[in-house]
């Protein structure tokens, strides 16, 4: 402790170690206070956990987009939150149309599947266009440059959607099949949450299959290993990168639909920003560039966001702890970057990658 690798005393390491101890203490004390006060019953904890898992699975789906692109290009797609927004926004119009014809409630499964496909395709198109226009011409340039184009692209997309559809929130129509709750003993879990979690699981398994079992998946892994050698093996790098952006976009679009069905306040042009940052946090948390890491990181972040304020912050006597949900994600990001930059499952980030 308090020493760097060469064994000398270092103030930076000292501060970080002190910080580490303080954080562990705060978490333990807060949790102990809350648990011993018994303010929240077991059923409520289970409910929080379920809500956290379903929110986390949305984060995980978005985080997969970040991590896929990072794995291949070592670049963070800042505009990914807007890809998510594009899918959620366009599926809103489809949902409205389906609802007007009554199809949505007659064939809920089919129409939700339709919405997934539609939102996925729109998001895929947006992601691919962003790659083609904003990233590909800059592939060899310094790392700061694609980041700034990404900011430009995300600004452009946000306001393009605002220009097209206005700045109001638009709420998805209610799907009757997703109403109600599943009752187990004295614990009741809303069906929407179960649906969100299950559909996210299906999509994640689909991605896993795609990456591990198909030819294009093998090509993706090869490109992320070494672009030059992959090119020598006859892999079309540009196509693989485009495909990766497309897959990430599809997952983000599907996440957009899930988010729309899950959150009653609806969609607007700015909705992608905060989930985008949180999903990025999740990707870093799990170890950026690592697919199972992104899934795990997303679920983990969702659960921490749901339980953390009630367990730790309330226990420490901080008022309005649930209002601090958004701050938790930022704090987690900073803590992960300080204490374990490689994330839960990731390999250590070398100097050049960070």
């Amino acid at each position, binding site marked *: 402790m308090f020493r760097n690798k060469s064994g000398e005393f270092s103030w930076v390491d000292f501060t970080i170690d002190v910080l580490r101890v303080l954080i562990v203490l705060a978490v333990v004390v807060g949790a102990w206070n809350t648990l011993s006060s018994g303010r929240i019953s077991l059923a409520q904890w289970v409910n929080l956990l379920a809500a956290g898992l379903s929110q986390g699975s949305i984060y995980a789906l978005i985080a997969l987009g970040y991590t896929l692109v990072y794995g291949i290009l070592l670049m963070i797609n800042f505009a990914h939150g807007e890809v998510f927004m594009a899918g959620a926004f366009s599926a809103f119009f489809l949902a409205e149309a389906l609802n007007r014809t009554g199809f949505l409630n007659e064939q809920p499964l089919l129409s939700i599947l339709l919405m997934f496909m539609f939102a996925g395709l729109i998001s895929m198109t947006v992601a691919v266009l962003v790659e083609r226009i904003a990233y590909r011409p800059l592939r060899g340039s310094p790392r700061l440059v694609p980041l700034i184009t990404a900011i430009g692209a995300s600004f452009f997309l946000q306001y393009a959607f605002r220009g097209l*559809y206005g700045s109001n929130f638009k709420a998805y129509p209610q799907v009757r099949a997703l109403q109600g709750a599943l009752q187990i003993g004295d614990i009741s879990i809303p069906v929407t949450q179960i649906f969100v979690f299950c559909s996210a699981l299906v999509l994640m398994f689909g991605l896993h299959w795609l990456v591990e079992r198909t030819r294009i998946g093998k090509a993706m892994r090869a490109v992320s290993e070494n672009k030059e050698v992959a090119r020598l093996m006859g892999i079309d790098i540009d196509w693989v990168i485009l495909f990766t952006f497309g897959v990430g976009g599809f997952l983000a679009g599907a996440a957009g639909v899930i988010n729309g069905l899950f959150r009653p306040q609806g969609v607007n042009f700015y909705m992608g920003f905060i989930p985008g940052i949180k999903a990025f946090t999740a990707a*870093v948390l799990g170890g950026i560039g690592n697919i199972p890491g992104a899934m795990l990181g997303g679920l983990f972040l969702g659960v921490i966001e749901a339980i953390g304020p009630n367990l730790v912050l309330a226990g420490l006597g901080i008022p309005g702890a649930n209002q601090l949900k958004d701050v938790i994600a930022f704090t987690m990001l900073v803590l992960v970057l300080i204490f374990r930059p490689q994330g839960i499952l990731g390999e250590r980030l070398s100097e050049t990658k960070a």
Partner: protein
Amino acid sequence: MANLNPAGVFDTSYAQDLRIDRTPRDKLWKNLAFIALLLLPLLSHSSPLGLAWISDQYVSLVARVAIFVIAVQGLNLLVGYTGQISLGHGAFMAVGAYGSAILARELGFSFWVALPVSALLTGAVGLVFGLPSLRVKGFYLAMATLAAQFIIPWALRYPMADLTGGTRPLSVPAPIIGPFAAYAEDALGIDDPLQFTAGDAYFVDVITVVLPPHTGKAPRIEIINPSGDVVPYGDVNVNLLMDGYGNLHSLSYIASKHGDYRVGLVAEDGDEDMPALVRRGKALSFASDIAMYYLIVPLAVLLMFVARNIIRTRTGRAFISVRDNDLAAELLGINVFATKLRAFFLSSVYAGVAGCLLAFERNSLALQMFELDVSIEMLAMLIIGGAGFPLGAMFGVTFIRLLQEAIIPTLRPLLSDWLPQLFPFIDVVNITSAINPILFGGALMLFLVLEPRGIAHRWEIFKVAWKIRPYSY
């Protein structure tokens, strides 16, 4: 062609390479440009010369461009020269703006003291948010500075709402020099108002009410304007001074309109007898646009010059080496972390000065002036103008402001004409309100793809081409 050297200016010594003015002609042009800038407001409608050749709004437009040139030049030191990204520059401007406004309102600091103090304060805040640059780079640093963009406005809005007015706009007194000339003292009792006459646009009456030390609630100071209304507290150009007990102690009121004003004391609890002292005198005021212009523009030119010189120093060369290769810089004996922090500090000081000037130029502050959009806008201005070029900030801000103030207003009627015909589902109101940021994001992307070195690079090419015309060699 292979062995021919192009014509043009060539350096024969290191000193020449380092010079700011490479040729006497450069110097001449720069001086002419500066003189032209100084002459500009004299041609406007409200100038004392009465020429009225250009509209007044251009004077304040140029002043506002100059303010943003200062802020973006700060960003240039950080992003362009040191290679550290910051998405929190707008929030740093907010620190400078609110810092100086609070110093002037609550502590009665004059503008001339509030400016450097708030700039240093902003520098200190910038240092804090620059600390993550020790461990993280690139996108992660962008995230850490983005946190500044969330934390600072939040802090100004909620915990410091008493000082900043929270979501309500905060009024800021105009800078003055003085008071001097005909400095007179009068006694001011309760219910015994004092009459005074407001000055013209350049010289104002400054009324300072000095209350004796007291323990109870301070008497209210009421100012009645020429039409007989009590001037609302928030709208008054006031400097407040507090005594040791935190009570309102003194108030300077700068009348902004012509006419007879009255100032009186109104006791808050009971009619305790409290004779106050009133000092009054004339002061040179910067309330008018033209006066503000002569304050801002020379300061902006000076700060551009300072930034140019910082780059020529040891510190500036350290900035560039950290940007180009931090590992190599460390091997050369440069303390990379200290260099990064220095860049963060300098950059925030520039942002603080810009924020302070913005506060005193607008006379009113609102938190919406410093949101994330502003930070991104400034980054875009820098990239479009040319990051890492001394004149990049100037080109970028001028280009974007031209786009916003000249091109978009002419485009808007056109858009609202043909867009609904092409896309019937589009609401015209929506698209015209969003056209600014859309063009902005688009311009940022296009510039990075097509001309990543920005307008400044094009300008260098143009200068060389002009110098050696009509032969390319």
